[in-house]
């Protein structure tokens, strides 16, 4: 097991180097000179241009800029935002709990609906339910998040008035953050109405962000379940005269869930990518919106370090999933 783990960690190193190169190169490959881009229509006088170039370190050879950047990142210095002048890591830490909270609820939504739907579709294979579910899942999977989010806002918030349009909590609630999770903080402060408000603000963005994972999980559960239902041990269990609920719920489901767990872990990347759009639509103060804002502001430092931090999180989650998978399924370790 230890060897397996070390092996996985060793494999992360080249990935990590690759990511630093990508994040670094991506920002420099963006068309246009960053200093001129910052200056806008005003333009910038030649002498001032040189001065700024030196101040931001753009006058150094490209390899030296990269070496400097890696050196800084290795010591935990992710730079300072060009626009806000605050340390990037500090902003990230403030905003990340919002993204995490939203992703958590989106995942709950996707799992609570996706797993039962997948099981039911597998059991009733070929039925109208199965067919319409798989059709809907395909639509959900290909749904443009931006369009879907706005549609839900216009219908549920605008037309029916059931949910708030955007934000994390009603504006009348105002307390100092403790954990950064609005649902937990409101309870820690003993404010039930604030908790309800935070939950109601989570409904639409969690549905929007959870839609793609929901489709993926439903399809994955269905196919894993179908595979397991054809296995000998399931047939044996049935032959023993066990109830259908027990055969499906205990014998089949436990084995079918192994690939589903992996799928859920891999959806973290999808969630973070989806958060970029979802947060922008719902004015959700997380890292997705932060990245979009920074791209529009041409804040290269935030974009570069933000990319790296997000990639690190995805890598960490994937590592955890790999380990969990090995724990659940010992055959993997030997391979």
């Amino acid at each position, binding site marked *: 097991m230890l060897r397996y783990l070390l092996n996985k960690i060793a494999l992360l190193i080249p990935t990590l180097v690759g990511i630093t190169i990508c994040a670094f190169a991506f920002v420099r490959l963006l068309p246009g000179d960053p200093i001129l881009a910052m200056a806008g229509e005003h333009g910038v*006088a030649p002498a001032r241009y040189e001065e700024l170039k030196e101040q931001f370190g753009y006058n150094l050879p490209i390899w030296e800029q990269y070496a400097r950047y890696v050196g800084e990142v290795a010591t935990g210095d992710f730079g300072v935002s060009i626009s806000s002048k605050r340390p990037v890591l500090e902003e990230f830490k403030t905003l990340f709990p919002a993204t995490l909270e939203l992703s958590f609820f989106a995942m709950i939504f996707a799992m609570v609906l996706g797993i039962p739907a997948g099981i039911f579709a597998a059991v009733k294979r070929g039925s109208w339910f199965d067919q319409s579910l798989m059709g809907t899942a395909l639509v959900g999977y290909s749904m443009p998040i931006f369009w879907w989010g706005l549609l839900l806002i216009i219908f549920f918030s*605008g037309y029916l008035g059931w949910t*708030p349009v955007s934000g994390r909590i009603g504006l009348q609630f105002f307390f100092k953050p403790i954990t950064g999770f609005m649902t937990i903080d409101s309870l820690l402060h003993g404010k039930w109405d604030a908790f309800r408000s935070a939950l109601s603000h989570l409904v639409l963005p969690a549905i929007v962000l959870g839609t793609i994972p929901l489709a993926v999980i439903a399809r994955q559960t269905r196919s894993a379940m179908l595979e397991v239902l054809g296995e000998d041990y399931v047939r044996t269990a049935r032959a023993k005269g066990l109830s259908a609920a027990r055969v499906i719920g205990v014998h089949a489901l436990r084995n079918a869930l192994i690939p589903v767990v992996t799928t859920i872990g891999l959806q973290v990347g999808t969630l973070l990518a989806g958060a970029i759009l979802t947060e922008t639509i719902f004015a959700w103060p997380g890292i997705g919106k932060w990245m979009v804002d920074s791209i529009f502001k041409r804040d290269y430092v935030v974009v570069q370090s933000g990319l790296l931090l997000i990639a690190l999180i995805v890598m960490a989650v994937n590592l955890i999933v790999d380990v969990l998978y090995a724990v659940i399924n010992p055959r993997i370790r030997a391979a």
Partner: protein
Amino acid sequence: MKKTMTFAAALLAASVLSGMASAKTLVYCSEASPANFDPGTTTGGNDFDASSRTVYSRLVEFKHGGTEIEPGLADKWEISDDGLVYTFHLHPGVKFQTTDYFKPTRDLNADDVVFSFDRQFNKQNPWNGDKYLPNLTWDYYTGMDMPKYVAKWEKVDDLTVKLTLTEPNAPMLANLGMDFASIVSKEYADQLQKDGKMADFSTKPVGTGPFQFVDYQLDSVIRYAANPDYFKGKEKIDDLVFAITPDATARIQKVLAGECDVAPYPNPADIATIKANKDVTLLDQAGLNIGYMSYNTTIPPLDKPEVRHALNQAIDREALIKSLFQDAGATPAENLIPPTMWSWNKDVKTDTYNPEAAKKVLADAGLKEIQLWASDRVRPYNPNFQRAAELIQADWAKVGVKANIVNYEWTKYREEGKKKDRPGAFQIGWTGDNGDPDNFFATLFACSAIGVSNYSSWCDKDFEDLIQKAKKTSDQAERTKLYEQAQVIFAKQAPAFLLAHSQVYAVVRNNVTGFKMDPLGIHRFDGVDKSE
């Protein structure tokens, strides 16, 4: 005595409670998070809405809803006959805001004014560089050429400040009304420096403006309370909240749902919905901007005004504007400056659509091909350069001129476009900074701006004389006359095709009073009230 005290206490409690019950909160759905709350260091309109226009005041202010200058922290000022010395007399007894993090011990004085500017250029000032915030660039201070024009700031006495210029510069007064010229507290700065918390100056602002800062949840909500000591009188709103909502559709849905009271910049596609709603009002105004297309006036045959006029006449401008701006609409430009700006010459008209006349002139001049420049960026004054280029290309084809569209990414586009020998017609535009006509005429068409922002490489002696004279004259009536003449010359010489001034919009709930659209593109909440 005891009874009186009890009664007084009860009365106080009652008035506090009734005040709480009727506390008025105005929610503004802003379009983006502020970079920080120090207006000297930021450049975005949303930064200024959140800092300079709420928390701070300036020596002079722009009239609410206009570009005229009126007294601010300075009750009055004198300008010496040679236009070099400005003496400002400060309003006495102005208090800086008392907050959780700062309790002022003295009123605003000349030291605060001198410090507010000194920190922006004096490298010896500890607040100028890295000790305060990393990578400070003071963009507006340098962008408005303040280092070139300002010789020194001096304190004459506590309530008198003297500004000496290196050469006469009439737009200086308008510059001092701009956001970067907000007056900060030297006492607060000194305290933070002593405590080793200099960076707090940009996150916990203290000013003399109508609202004081309460709290900011990053990328989410900014809270302000009315400044009880505001020198122009306490505001009618008790609490002001900025709910940061970047998506335009979500912003409008929030106003319609009553979750916010005011929201800027709706999507053109939502304008019909807004107009149809009875609870809200759509406000609009021609923005302080201009979209135009510069001809390089140094390369034949574009050096001849009649050829440039003919190219203008060949464009069906009405159709072009309609196609580009759609439901959002735009005011066709007759002059370089928009009609909301003082000195706009109402008698000047730009070329009208006349392809027949154009065809003949262009054929005589032998103009068969021309480069037509377009970029990828959406700008307030031109939402789609490429679409505009294609429509103009089609119009010019009808008069026998083949336009070759040249594309570059936005930054590279401007770099190439400003070169003196760049051929053809170059689409560009401008959004004004300070409401002074000089900010349009001299910035865009002065001889000295060739190679910088004069994309027509146009240097006309008569026009140049007029705008330089206007720059050095302090009397506004006199300046108005000079700019009016300059517009006549501009129309005659046609160094550019003038497209339009785009409309700016805001949506306001009907129970809000006193909110005005501002030609400078800022959103102000002083003087705004709300009924239940």
